């Protein structure tokens, strides 16, 4: 498959949770593509559905129920696969998991089983997917740990997760994720729980591994600075919908959707001396998931609200320029006229 061919094509994905007080739509009609060798960043505040979207690719979206939409994956071994049709506990999806789509989670503390050594947990993936012997799997595990810059990997193989620091554990997680050379790596806020210095080392490691192995990464985070540094293109999500999707330079240089603009302005800039200037603040808070506002979900907090339009009609995600998409009436109107 030549470079930047589409590996993952998601169309009108809709996921809802059945809760006691009623149904909560976590992901509301999301469509995007992931290209080979690209890093796609998904940014958004808590409850915007970024993590549920990512987990649905491996059908481990927990209590959620996939309502509709397609997840077409170009798998090496199985050809074109519609993941949404696979049974979450079935044979097929287990074929794909970790062999073709792997994942790194946010909490380094609890991502590894407490009762088993690193050697056991990492080599298990190899014996399962690559059908190779235990001893050979352990050797490959040692090599993969060395590749992520682990000091003394032979010693680490016999150690238990509680014996090493959070940063080290996250490195081991990445080693485990990349050991089967998956096509897609989903990173769900891998550095949120880490210190700044450990975070930057993990980001460097991910970037370096991505280049050498050519894996495409789906990077999820609420920290815009981190995404700006690691992603090729960025998607901003709000209340389960994509509001803006653009290459990283365009998005941060000239953000279009009012929410993206407000988000960028509300982060204190480390290189700017504010004297007694104040941060531009986005008023209000994320609406209650049980009663979505009608029309555009952002309209109650949007400074550029057009009465009669924004609070009635839901904007569609339309192309505004070369692979830049925005879901906002401000741009639809201009598109029609220009």
């Amino acid at each position, binding site marked *: 498959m030549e470079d930047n061919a589409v590996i993952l094509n998601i169309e009108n994905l809709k996921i809802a949770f059945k809760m006691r007080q009623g149904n909560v739509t976590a992901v509301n009609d999301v469509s995007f593509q992931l290209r080979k060798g690209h890093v796609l960043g998904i940014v958004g505040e808590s409850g915007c559905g970024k993590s549920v979207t990512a987990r649905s690719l491996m059908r481990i979206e927990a209590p959620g129920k996939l309502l509709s939409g397609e997840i077409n994956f170009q798998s090496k071994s199985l050809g074109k696969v519609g993941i949404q049709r696979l049974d979450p506990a079935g044979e097929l999806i287990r074929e794909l998991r970790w062999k073709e789509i792997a994942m790194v989670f946010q909490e380094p503390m609890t991502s590894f089983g407490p009762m088993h050594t690193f050697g056991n947990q990492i080599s*298990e993936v190899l014996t399962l997917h690559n059908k190779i012997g235990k001893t050979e799997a352990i050797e490959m595990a040692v090599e993969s740990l060395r590749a992520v810059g682990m000091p003394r990997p032979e010693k680490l193989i016999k150690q238990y997760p509680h014996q090493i620091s959070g940063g080290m554990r996250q490195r081991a997680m990445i080693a485990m994720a990349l050991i089967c050379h998956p096509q897609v790596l989903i990173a769900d806020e891998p550095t949120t729980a880490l210190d700044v210095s450990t975070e930057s080392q993990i980001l460097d490691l991910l970037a370096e591994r991505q280049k050498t192995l050519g894996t495409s990464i789906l990077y999820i985070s609420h920290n815009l600075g981190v995404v700006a540094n690691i992603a090729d293109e960025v998607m901003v999500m709000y209340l389960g919908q994509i509001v803006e999707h653009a290459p990283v330079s365009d998005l941060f240089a000239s953000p279009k959707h009012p929410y993206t603009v407000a988000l960028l302005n509300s982060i204190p800039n480390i290189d700017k001396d504010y004297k007694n200037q104040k941060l531009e603040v986005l008023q209000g808070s994320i609406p209650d998931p049980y009663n979505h506002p009608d029309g555009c979900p952002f309209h109650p907090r949007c400074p550029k609200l057009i009465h009669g339009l924004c609070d009635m009609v839901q904007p569609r995600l339309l192309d505004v320029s070369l692979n830049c998409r925005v879901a906002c009436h401000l741009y639809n109107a201009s598109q029609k006229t220009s």
Partner: protein
Amino acid sequence: MKLLKYVIKRLSWGALVLLFVSFFSFLIIQLPPGDYLSSYMARLEKSGMSVDNKSMVALRHSYGLDQPFLVQYGKWFYRFIQGDMGVSFIYTEKVETIIKERLPATLMLSFSSLLVIYLIAIPVGVFAARRQYSLWDFLAAILGFIGMAVPGFLLALILMWIAYQVFGVSIGGLQSPQFMDQPMTMGKFIDLIKHLPVPIIVITMSGTAALIRTMRATLLDELGKQYVTTARAKGLAENKLIYKYPVRAAMNPIISSGGWLVPELFSGETIAAIVLGLPTIGPILYRALLGEDMYLAAGCLMILSGLTIIGLLISDIILAISDPRIRLE
């Protein structure tokens, strides 16, 4: 090795507790106003025989009942350490021979009950946790409740009643009469096995019910943790994944629950033995307490507590070995 140091520390602590228990059990038997002789005298008078005062004093002296409490305790404890637990008034035999005679049955019953509890509770607990809120889970919960609600002696009574009504056979004791003091033959062994189910059920009922609930709750807790999602994402099959990670992690609280399970076992065994007439230490303690047979009662209490302490020690050691977080501290 660190584990050895831990074992030695625990053993010394167990010995200290046993010392306290000995003082406590000896104190208990001293408390009631009279002692064995006076209650024995009262029984004799009731049946018309009278014993003159002088021989009473001689008897009291020979049993050392006239010395002050602390001296009696000191002498008793000193001899106890050397294995001489004093003489029982009721059986007029040395206490340690009575106990030695009954110890194997006690150990065999409690050990097999512990095994049965763990063998039943773990799979049922795992089964109930995995099918939460299903019919099976509900049934397990109901069984659990009833298990905890029916007192031991009542269960024994009901089982004996059913056996008596339906099969017309009395299922008390561990041995049918004809094998009573024969050497251990194949026939006797089979007969023993045939007698085992009822006492085991009575002893293990409440322990199993409680352990099922603990297992279910602990496993539900572990199933919610992040590493289960990681394992699922790695493509492991659901069954393999559940038994390898969350169930293994849930085993630690189960092993440490030996802490309240072992005393529960011995106490369940005591009551079952009294009702079913089993040849264990329970009934002797019961008769000793009723008849205020001081040395026998103290001996039984000591042995039962000793066994419990050893049981607790073993469960702690197994826990230390099984949980890497404790072992490698």
